[in-house]
């Protein structure tokens, strides 16, 4: 099984589908699956947010997006982390 990646925009109380709060990817491969978010530390790391949502957790919403749209959110997070000036 090749790697199958689904990207999600994360929407919280302070964001909207037009300007998501963050990005998550679910990576499925023969060995199993894992979820990762791209964080303010500028790397992809394990995340339990979508599993928590699937367990009924409130406060977040996950909208499937394309890889290109995910790339735009990653770029925005990188820009926000860049020192001003």
């Amino acid at each position: 099984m090749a790697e199958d990646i689904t990207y999600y925009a994360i929407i919280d109380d302070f964001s909207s589908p037009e300007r998501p709060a963050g990005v998550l990817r679910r990576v499925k491969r023969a060995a199993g699956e894992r979820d990762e978010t791209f964080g303010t530390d500028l790397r992809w790391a394990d995340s339990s947010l979508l599993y928590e949502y699937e367990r009924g957790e409130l406060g977040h919403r996950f909208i499937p997006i394309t890889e290109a749209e995910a790339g735009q959110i990653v770029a925005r997070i990188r820009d926000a982390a860049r020192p001003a000036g």
Partner: protein
Amino acid sequence: MPIDRPDPSDAPAAPEAPAAPEAPAAPDAPRPRGAPPPPDSAARAAYRARVERSYAAHRDRTAWAEAVPLLRAAWAEHQRQYPERGRAIPYTHPDNSWTSGETRRLTPDQNAAVDRGYDRIREIGERDIVPGMLAVEAVDPTRQLAGFDRRIKGEDRLKEKVADRMRTTGRTPDQALAEVPDVVRFTFRYSESTYASGVQGDVKRLEECGFGKVELRNTWDNDQYKGINTRWREPKSGVLFEVQFHTHASLEAKELTHRAYERIRSTAFEGERAELRQFQCRVNSAIPVPPGVAEIEDYPPGGK
């Protein structure tokens, strides 16, 4: 072959199993003076439908009770195949910074902000939210608040959630803390037959208490978790709290899958995670679905 009837001691309680009607009189038979008129066909059909739903609910409950020992055995077998791995240990350092694993960390200032916020939310929870919840509970003795002693979330688990949100969304500690929906949380537990009407009645009572409904998610069609979870706002402080609505079986299923869920979100190997999700699906597929639950709609409509 014996007819499979419920044992009288297991039979549904009175509200779920209306007494058998008397046989309808023949249309031409004289009706005794003072006797009630014979039920019309619509009333008979409605009555039979109620009886059938009642027995179906009983069969579902029996199937769930029979499934539970098998599901517990399946979980024991999973634990044998996949022994528990070490979990990240939350730790407050001498400088008051806080860490849990590689990615969850709070600086001393952030940790202090979360501590202050946590103290405030707990105080508001006990002073302004708990009395309202107890008043709502007191209205109807047919359902109860379950797990009331666990109404305040543990400090380290809260900090994990705050740290996750800060890292993923760039929120400040105060924003991230305000977003965690279940620092203060409650669970109502109902019988299957009263679930749908009970939830709707209690949602209305919570609103009448002055709490603001923020979100309602009906996940009875979800294969990983079944129930209705809601988010509310205490009007004076703006503090959010959570109320979950369960049947006896869905709450038992939640507890039965708790360890699996903890592994999914923390220590599971990639390969184990698929099996854990399959286990959660198996447990949830055995839960009797209460009548009328599909009619309870999400709020806001179409999602948050």
